[in-house]
């Protein structure tokens, strides 16, 4: 029923709610998107490093010849190939390591004389990516000086970071929801005072509490949805601008990741969630206030 018995068009409390919902939904959309982007980035990174390991066999040190080092590398390779979880293990050719180092150390004779470690690139079978620890044990048993990096430390720090950002985003959304609820409570109380005479008449003519509360609730729902849609309208160009700026940054630093469809769905839901929250809060507030009447 679109008809309302209360002169809502005249009161400013409601317009304030709409404006505030716009800002709050805008902020929620930002928080949710930052969170989704962090998650997507983490998935992207972990997908590219999970199941890979890098083994470093230290270069010849004092008391050891470079052929000792080469033999250690062979030992590691041989041991790796026996492990069932290993799909492939390849020594990275010395030339390639040199090429990788050139930008930092310069080319020429000096670099080729450097005591470089031997690097072995290990790919685990896709179904046994969690055997990384036993593979590492095997390597260290073969050559105690070898260093195994399965990127887990790095990845777990990234996971912590993403988790932290997620919690902050959740906290923000919680604060935002609380602000919305409090605003609706105060705006509803203001309207209740403003419309007291009308409400008394409705009450005396036999309106049930939920009839009166329903009018406030319906109006809060509309304000929430309209404000929320405006918030998304504000958010869209902001997102576009950030995406454009991100594209200007080197691809390796900020990989272009796709946000999951669920995220866009959640964003589209925000106005309705805001509307529902406003609706229930208004309903509750009015019912409470009406209980002061006989």
């Amino acid at each position, binding site marked *: 029923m679109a*008809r309302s*018995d209360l*002169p809502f068009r*005249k009161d400013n409390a409601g317009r304030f709610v709409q404006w505030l919902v716009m800002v709050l939904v805008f902020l929620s959309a930002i928080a949710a998107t930052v969170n989704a982007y962090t998650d997507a980035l983490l998935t992207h990174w972990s997908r590219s490093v999970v199941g890979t390991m890098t083994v470093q066999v230290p270069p010849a040190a004092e008391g050891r010849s470079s052929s000792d080092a080469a033999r250690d590398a062979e030992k590691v390779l041989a041991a790796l190939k026996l492990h069932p979880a290993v799909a492939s293990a390849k020594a990275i050719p010395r030339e390639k390591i040199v090429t990788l180092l050139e930008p930092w150390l310069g080319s020429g004779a000096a670099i080729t004389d450097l005591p470089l470690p031997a690097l072995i690139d290990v790919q685990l079978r896709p179904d046994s990516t969690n055997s990384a620890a036993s593979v590492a044990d095997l390597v260290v048993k073969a050559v105690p000086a070898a260093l195994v990096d399965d990127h887990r430390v790095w990845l777990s720090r990234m996971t912590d970071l993403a988790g932290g950002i997620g919690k902050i985003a959740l906290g923000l959304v919680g604060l935002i929801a609380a602000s919305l609820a409090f605003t609706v409570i105060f705006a509803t109380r203001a309207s209740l005072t403003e419309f007291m*005479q*009308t409400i*008394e*008449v*409705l*009450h*005396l*003519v*036999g*309106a*049930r*509490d939920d*009839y009166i509360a329903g009018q406030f609730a319906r109006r809060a729902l509309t304000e929430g949805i309209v404000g929320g849609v405006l918030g998304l309208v504000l958010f869209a160009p902001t997102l576009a601008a950030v995406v454009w700026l991100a594209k200007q940054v080197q691809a390796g630093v900020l990989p272009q990741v796709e946000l999951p469809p669920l995220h866009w769905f959640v964003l589209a839901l925000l106005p309705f969630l805001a509307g529902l929250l406003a609706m229930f809060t208004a309903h509750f507030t009015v019912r409470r206030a009406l*209980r002061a009447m*006989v």
Partner: protein
Amino acid sequence: MAFNRKKKTFEGDTVQLENVSVGYGEVPPIISGVSLNLPQKSFHFLTGPSGTGKTSLLSLLYLANLPMAGSVKLFGEDVMDASRSRLAALRRRVGVVFQDFRLLDHLSVFDNVALPLRIARVPEDVVMQDVKELLNWVGLGEHMENKPAVLSGGQKQRVAIARAVVNRPKLILADEPTGNVDDKIAVRLMALFIELHKLGSSVIVATHNESLVARFPFPRLHLENGVLTPRPAAGQAG
């Protein structure tokens, strides 16, 4: 008018007051120890000097207040025991003409009168028909779309009466319903209450207008110094 909507039938007295006291806050009660039974289809005037508590007594019956002491039964239901939604349901069976009208200024005359029907969730086509018919009857057919603010005192009063009776309440409480109209219209408005009375409603008309009381053959309840005294009818058949 088509007075054919089904209402729950109820056999006992419409109003039963037992030892009722009415008051506001700490001051001594305005009315104390009033007992009163109003049968169905009764018609009473309620008289008494200004400030004596007529409106306060009526407000007990339209459930704006609860008694300080004593019991109030409407349609056999004890209001002290009734839930909030039962109280609302009881209020829908009572039509009130407020002394100060209490029209909603932001609604048209039509919507003001339609209010009780819409609250009772009467279908909109019935609302249209009943409200129009009633407004024509009280001579406000031309003013349906106007806001109350542009009406005269007497016109507002007629809107208030129309709103009170539009849902064919079984109990009609009219607080000075003819205070702002000339005698000719007063008689016409009384005729409306009498018609509803004949159709089965109990009516109480609170008034200062002695000539109105004298004109109709209805008993009066006189309230003075907190005491309610029934008096026999003064007037002849109207």
